[in-house]
């Protein structure tokens, strides 16, 4: 395979390999979710969809879509978590693609606007 790298950090990651792509992960609290659909409607990556729940309740629940095993469509923006009326969503991992697209994150933490 042609190697177009300019050093290790210049290499283009494989977009469908979970070891190259740390895509965002959001988790849903099925107890708090009322299946209102707000998160599915607003996700800017359009990366959420409703799925059938396995357990006895059989409620439809939002879930994160994957383009390959371990590679989600989530860019970790947190919009869904902020918009959810039931506070049922938490962002477990932010987006950070590997190699060339790796962001030299200044801080792993996020915070709401602060009134200085």
């Amino acid at each position, binding site marked *: *395979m*042609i190697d*177009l790298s300019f050093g290790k950090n210049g290499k*283009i*990651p*494989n*977009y*469908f390999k979970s070891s190259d*792509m740390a*895509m965002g992960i959001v988790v849903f609290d099925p107890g708090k979710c009322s299946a209102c659909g*707000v998160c599915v*409607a*607003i996700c*800017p*990556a*359009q*990366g959420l969809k409703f799925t059938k729940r396995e357990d006895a309740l059989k409620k439809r629940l939002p879930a994160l879509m994957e*383009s*390959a095993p371990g590679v989600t*469509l989530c*860019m970790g*923006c*947190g*919009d869904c*978590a*902020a*918009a959810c*009326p039931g*506070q049922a969503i938490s962002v477990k991992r932010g*987006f950070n*693609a590997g190699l*060339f*697209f790796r962001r030299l*994150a*200044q*801080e792993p*933490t*996020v*915070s*709401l*606007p*602060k*009134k*200085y």
Partner: protein
Amino acid sequence: MAKKPTDGLSPLYTYQEGMEWNPVEKVIMERRSIRAFKKEPVPNSLIRRVLEAGRFAPSAGNAQPWKFIVVKDQELIAEMDRATAKLTKFMMWFVDYNRGPIRRLLLAPFTRFMTRFMPNKLHPIPFNLLQQISADKASSFYNPPVMILLLIDKRGVGVPALDAGICGQNMVLAAHSLGLGTCWVGMMTVLMMNPLWRRKLGIKSPYELTDCILMGWPKGDYDGEVPREVQTVEWIEAGGVRRVERQGV
């Protein structure tokens, strides 16, 4: 939506540490990209009012390197959406290398090569969206009642695209302060790869079109604060004393 301060806003032009947002700050903090719009049209006078905020944006050398096209024709917008989907499908046929083992073998080197040349256009985030659009799972323009095409005049001073960005954000903030919802859409770049569409919309050199702003009455109330990355800010104080501060915590 979480954390929407509705209590008394602070007056403009005053500052006290830790005070409530003033109305301008409130609009900045609570503006969210709106991707679901009511069918209800936006009055022309209101569109003109928003454009006025763009007209008075700062620009390098006061060159004002922008031009606006307001699209209200719903049929045209729907056609643009379809055309973008079609073009995306065509494009992704050449670069989406995850549709089977043979494609992966043949296309992966080419895709990497293309990504090397267009690292921003083929960044994993738009790549994902392009994939969704080409699978008919996502829309590019979300059926807005109004679309403002923000043309960049390449003859501007310095970096004209930067000026156009400032101009666009001025309009976005004005729109949100008036109760409208907006969304910046860079997928316009895909449509503009087709010369027929450039002709159809009248985009000719020295103008170029990369992004547009969707505008309309929001369906649902999504404006509100979201968390963002904490920044490490370097301060250089008098005497060259350097110090690093965490901004936002």
